[in-house]
């Protein structure tokens, strides 16, 4: 018998049921870890540490989850706050450090399109990358992403638009290089 998220949340809140919470972690560990891996530009160790902190925070704050959004959306919000907190604590992880990178990606020919996309995503600034990852990879609506990021809807739309424009441009360069090789 499979429990719904609401059933599991109710068990956690009423009984402090760690097994029920474990099932929620099992369900959402992949999107949360993937999201944080992209925010940390592929640092999977840091992402996993942040993901663990995210779920520990979720355990403590689950009573504040009102159920008016999807649990995944709420977890992305907790994860983003953890990332932002870590970025503030760690000088080397400032939120907009990608602004200092050159606009054009390295011209080295890369036969793997997806690898190029990974590299291109890393070059977006933090706000654009977060918006693109949430909306285009994790399927959140712009409204849900605005809720996660606690910013105006227009800002999310702009960041998605700008981020995708840059990705198209950079991927086209990489693809041209691949074609001419």
């Amino acid at each position, binding site marked *: 018998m499979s429990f719904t998220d609401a059933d599991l949340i109710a068990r956690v809140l009423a009984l*402090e049921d*760690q097994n029920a*919470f*474990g099932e929620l*972690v*099992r369900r959402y*560990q*992949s999107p949360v*870890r*993937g999201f944080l*891996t992209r925010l940390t530009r592929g640092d999977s160790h840091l992402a*996993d540490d942040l*993901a*663990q902190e995210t*779920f*520990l925070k979720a*355990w*403590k704050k689950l009573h504040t989850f009102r159920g008016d959004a999807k649990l995944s959306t709420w977890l992305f919000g907790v994860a983003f706050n953890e990332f932002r907190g870590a970025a503030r604590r760690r000088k080397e992880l400032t939120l907009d450090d990608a602004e200092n990178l050159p606009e054009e990606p390295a011209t080295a020919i890369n036969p793997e*399109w*997806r690898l190029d*996309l*990974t590299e291109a995503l890393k070059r977006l600034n933090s706000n654009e990358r977060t918006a*693109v990852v949430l*909306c*285009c*990879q*994790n*399927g959140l*609506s*712009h409204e849900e992403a605005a809720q996660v990021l606690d910013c105006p809807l227009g800002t999310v739309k702009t960041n*998605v638009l700008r981020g*995708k424009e840059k*990705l*198209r441009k950079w*991927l086209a360069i990489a693809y041209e290089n691949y074609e001419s090789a």
Partner: protein
Amino acid sequence: MNPLKTNDPLDTLLREQNQYIEDNGFTARVVSALPRRRARFWTHQTFLLAVTVGGAVLAVRWLPWENLPAFNWSALLSLNSHLLVPWAVVVSVVGALVWAAVSAVQEED
């Protein structure tokens, strides 16, 4: 608008890149790091509050309130031991009870 509903090839590429991450013990690590169950916490807090209430009852019952000298700042500042010692006892008992009550409440955070 849900971006997933578009036919943009870039969206398709981004979605394809978003692959499932195997658990590999992550859930077990999270569950083992969860803080102690609140049931135990409530037991501890209830015990602390019960002891505090018990102490307050005993203090009200056993302290010689009727023999307590009237409070007088000038006598107190003159360090009169007949006034100072009984009031020091009262202040210590009340202080201990307040401290216990505050500790019990603060543990919730």
